[in-house]
């Protein structure tokens, strides 16, 4: 079965071709079958491959399948090839699985859209590109997937392109992503040339990582920082996160699939994939961790004041991505990937739930016009509720395990620092607050729904609620593959990923507790004394912080709905600042967009119009002037022409006569 890894990306490609080329003539019904079923086949293949892989001993869990040579130049060779290892198969499972359910959901959600076929074409193409990104065995093919998902993101954000805001948001996403991709490309080039100096011309993952030790620290730092800029663009981190909130203009299942569950996590995946390089460059790791934690808290605070339910979720996504980067930044790669996976479940679910709410309320997005929907759309409410619990980090649900592992690693790992933990824990409390704020505003309290909408509030059809329920199930139980040792679990995911991501963090610093911890870690299970107690205490602390966040949200939005207004008036300036998202968009507008516009206008008016147009038009004008006079000679009277011929003849004869006389 491992031989057939190429089937995983092939199925969506087939779906893309069928839907794209023949979708219109095949009709809606066939498209509804083809779209989700090709993804289902991919999912099935991934499951089969996964089981075959775990049948092998941990050290042999790496398989590469070369499809064909792609770029061959001298001793450099790049192939179209796919790589199966614990990391990529886990990602493939998450991506194809979540995609499958979101495709099914889309059949219901997009049912009456005139662009139905186009939608599934793009969505299939997206999954194909995403699987290429994940399964690629070299940087170049990964970059193809990287750009491909960016393209699909652009196409799907601007899916309703008749709307100005949607097409603008698509452009914004595309342009901002270019900034990141620029970094990715430079990083790749630098990696390629600096390895080439040592005689290793390759972009293949296995070979690059095997030869990474030949590079000096400075080069590796530069490479990893550049790659991280790429990750910042794709995964919406400070300072180039601004495209993701706008990306909510796309259809809601797209926000769920691309802008929450899969594509935006590509950056985290890429950093985890390059963990060998990152581990060599402590400065880069610090940068990753700090950017991650800063993003986590910064965007969580923006989430406080948003009234658009999808915008809240968007900022929450950015914040959670920040967590993942914090995780990989402190060397806890498996914790980052673990959070990536659980986040795909609960955030995908949250978006689908928001879509279901919109479906019930005829497309209403403003949470101020919702409320008391709990009884009216119970399935949506309960699934949304569990997802909210999961993201808030309530013990027993998936988000708790993954988030707590990141928090603990941020504190305890040799790359960690107590301040990272403190900020991240605070952000966790804020997450709990704004998520429960969204929950309370949407489903509890008094109904603020518009009169004409409230008559036909209805639960979504079965085809939409079933994916909700499945994802809710995954959000609840998804965490149990990574129960930490201190709670008596075996941390399966950590062990599973260990061959790729290393066995956790090596105790480099001479921290007393840490070395005890890592010994306890290594011995597996019997978590000893001090550090285990510390870990438990931290767990309790983070849960308490989350509960406080929930409590405040309850107080503000259920118990005393007048409080938010009072608070907003009390701290009016702060509120306006946060409500306007810290004016980041406006600052970028002034700093980058306007200066580029001015440069462009300057070149347009100064150079293009004056110099280039001037010279071209000037020459044309002169010639026109000249020919305007010359053409008067053409009178159309034959006798005039004859007259000039006679004159010419006389002149010629006169010339010869004169010449004969004088010479």
């Amino acid at each position: 079965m491992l031989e057939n890894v190429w089937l995983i990306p092939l199925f969506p490609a087939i779906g893309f071709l069928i839907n794209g080329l023949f979708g219109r003539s095949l009709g809606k019904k066939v498209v509804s079958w083809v779209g989700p079923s090709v993804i289902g086949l991919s999912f099935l293949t991934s499951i089969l491959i996964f089981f075959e892989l775990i049948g092998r001993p941990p050290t042999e869990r790496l398989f590469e399948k070369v499809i064909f040579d792609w770029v061959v130049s001298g001793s450099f060779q790049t192939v179209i090839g796919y790589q199966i290892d614990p990391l990529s198969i886990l990602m493939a499972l998450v991506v194809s699985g979540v995609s499958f359910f979101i495709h099914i959901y889309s059949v219901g959600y997009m049912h009456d859209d005139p662009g139905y076929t186009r939608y599934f074409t793009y969505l299939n193409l997206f999954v194909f590109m995403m699987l290429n990104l994940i399964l690629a065995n070299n940087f170049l093919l990964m970059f193809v997937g990287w750009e491909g998902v960016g393209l699909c993101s652009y196409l799907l954000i601007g899916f309703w392109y008749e709307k100005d805001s949607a097409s603008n948001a698509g452009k914004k996403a595309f342009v901002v992503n270019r900034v990141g991709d620029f970094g990715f490309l430079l990083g790749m080039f630098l990696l390629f040339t600096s390895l080439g100096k040592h005689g290793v011309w390759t972009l293949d993952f296995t070979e690059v990582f095997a030869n990474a030790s030949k590079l000096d620290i400075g080069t590796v730092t530069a490479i990893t920082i550049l790659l991280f800029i790429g990750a910042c663009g794709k995964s919406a981190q400070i300072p180039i996160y601004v495209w993701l909130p706008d990306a909510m203009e796309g259809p809601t299942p797209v926000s769920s699939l691309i802008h929450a569950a899969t594509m935006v996590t590509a950056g985290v995946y890429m950093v985890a994939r390059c963990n060998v390089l990152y581990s060599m460059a402590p400065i880069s790791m610090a940068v990753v961790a700090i950017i991650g934690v800063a993003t986590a808290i910064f965007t969580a605070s923006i989430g406080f004041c948003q009234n658009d339910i999808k915008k809240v979720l968007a900022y929450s996504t950015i914040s959670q991505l920040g967590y993942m980067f914090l995780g990989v930044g402190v060397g806890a790669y498996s914790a980052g990937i673990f959070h990536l996976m659980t986040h795909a479940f609960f955030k995908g679910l949250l978006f689908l739930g928001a879509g279901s709410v919109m479906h019930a309320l005829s497309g209403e997005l403003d949470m101020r016009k919702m409320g008391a929907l709990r009884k009216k759309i119970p399935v949506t409410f309960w699934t949304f509720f569990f997802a909210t619990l999961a993201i808030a980090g309530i013990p027993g649900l998936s988000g708790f395990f993954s988030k707590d592992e990141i928090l603990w690693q941020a504190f305890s790992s040799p790359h960690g620092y107590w301040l990272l933990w403190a900020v991240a824990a605070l952000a966790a409390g804020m997450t709990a607050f704004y998520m429960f704020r969204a929950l309370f505003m949407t489903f509890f309290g008094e109904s603020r729904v518009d009169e004409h909408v409230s008559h036909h509030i209805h639960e979504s059809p079965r085809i939409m609620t079933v994916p909700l329920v499945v994802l809710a199930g995954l959000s609840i139980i998804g965490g149990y593959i990574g129960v930490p040792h201190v709670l008596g679990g075996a941390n399966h995911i950590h062990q599973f990923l260990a061959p790729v991501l290393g066995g956790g963090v090596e105790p480099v610093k001479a921290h007393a507790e840490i070395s005890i911890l890592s010994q306890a870690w290594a011995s597996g299970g019997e978590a000893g004394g001090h550090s285990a107690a510390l870990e438990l205490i931290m767990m309790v602390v983070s849960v308490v912080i989350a509960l406080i966040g929930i409590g405040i949200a309850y107080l503000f939005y259920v118990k005393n709905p007048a409080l938010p207004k009072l608070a907003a008036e009390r701290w009016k300036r702060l509120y306006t600042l946060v409500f306007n998202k810290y004016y980041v968009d406006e600052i970028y507008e002034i700093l980058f967009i306007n200066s580029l516009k001015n440069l462009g206008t300057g070149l347009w008016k100064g150079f293009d119009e004056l110099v280039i147009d001037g010279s071209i038009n000037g020459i044309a004008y002169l010639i026109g002037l000249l020919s305007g006079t010359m053409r008067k000679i053409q009178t159309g009277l034959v006798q005039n022409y004859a007259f000039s011929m006679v004159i010419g003849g006389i002149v010629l004869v006169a010339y010869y006569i004169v010449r004969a006389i004088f010479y």
Partner: protein
Amino acid sequence: MTIPSVPPECYLVLSGILFTIGVIGALTRRNAIVVFMCIEMMLNAVNISFITLSRFLQSLDGVLFAFFVIAVAAAEAAVGLAIFVMIYRSRETINVDEINLLKW
């Protein structure tokens, strides 16, 4: 009685006079048929000088040219008159001053 021989200079002068009359007529007359006749006169003036010089130089080249000119003039007359007929049909005039479409 013998007819006194005419010196070749006279023929050439005659040819020149005829040619000049043809040129002036072709440039000044407005009726296309008259212009055409003037052109014929120019051609025949040239023919006279050809024949004269042929005789004078005791060579047949000039005669040969004269025949060519006659043949070409005949063809030209056929085509030219046909054109005039067509112009007259469409514009009801053969005044060359009014046939001036081919211009700026």
